């Protein structure tokens, strides 16, 4: 690699690093219990909780590290964590 003074990287390139492999527990949702408080979306450190009108709350398992915050903060007790078998 050519060395320069300073180093510049293109915006948002860390998306190549799929952190889903770090996970030991995986979040799952019972959609009927969701009251759309969006705590899960707001507090996920990986921005891995997504929402669409059609699908409701869903997870981006490419990046979810399985920390469990979404489940802990879920007002409707809709999100639960499961041991993930790989």
């Amino acid at each position: 690699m050519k060395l320069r003074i300073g180093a510049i990287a293109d915006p948002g390139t860390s998306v190549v690093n799929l952190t889903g492999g770090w996970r030991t527990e995986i979040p799952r949702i019972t959609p009927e219990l969701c009251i759309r408080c969006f705590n899960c979306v707001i507090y996920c450190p990986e921005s891995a909780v997504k929402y669409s009108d059609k699908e409701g709350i869903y997870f981006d398992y490419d990046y979810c590290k399985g920390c469990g915050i979404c489940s802990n903060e879920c007002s409707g007790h809709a999100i639960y964590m499961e041991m993930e078998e790989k």
Partner: protein
Amino acid sequence: MKNLFASGHRACGGCGMAIAIKLILEATGENVFVVSPTGCLEIVSSPYPETSWRVPWIHSLFENAASVASGIEAGLKALGRKDEGKVLAIGGDGGTADIGMGALSGMFERGHDVTYICYDNEAYMNTGVQRSSMTPIGASATTTPAGKVSYGEIHPKKDLVSIAVAHGLGYVASASVGYAADLMDKVKKAVDHDGPSFIHLHSSCCTGWRHPSSKTVEVMRLAVLTGLWPLYEVVDGEVVNVKRLAKRLPVEDYLKTQGRFSHLFKTDEGAEVIRQIQAMADANAEQYGLDLDIEE
């Protein structure tokens, strides 16, 4: 959400700082220039040739984030390009309250139009949980380990908000990662403020504080609800918008959630330290009028 802090960053699962950055950028939007000193934030977000930042971001040295931010602001001003965005510095407690203190004081004194946010995880986390001047009394860190001859950290935290206020800043606030809407509101006010502004942000490190990764937000809230981390703003020298508490919880409710304080629950000396920590929370309640008198 705007997702200006990209996924794929290397922060530990459940890191409070990672939540903090996504919320801060949600509040500022994309028109910002961000500076970060060395520390977890820089390390997890920028392993060359990758970066998680979707806004212009630069890594300074450990000690001079405030100086680099000052230079960017002065440069934008000199070039007549200030309308392109606000300048933000986001640094850890070590990079801010310890080695970066002089640079920060200079930035305040020269009146640069920069918002400085210190995410305070209460130790040097990136190098392995060494104590900083922001490590709270009673916490075990690798350089203040609790054991037979010590109960951990012996010095109280620096009062960073008051240090900033003493420089004559127009907008200073304390904030917590556990209160997202309040944090984003304060970030907006800070960047909209003309001249230097400062936010002291409590930010859990589940790895160094030793609590389950799922509890990060809950632990942050308990710091506020026990009176150990009062939420308030100081506008033109006046304390305003104090978050008042209907029923302040005992400090044990916060301390018992974290391994770094677990030794305090095992000895008489530890019990005495807990009483000392409770007295600090009581003093905060008195100073900021935290307790909501239901009778009122």
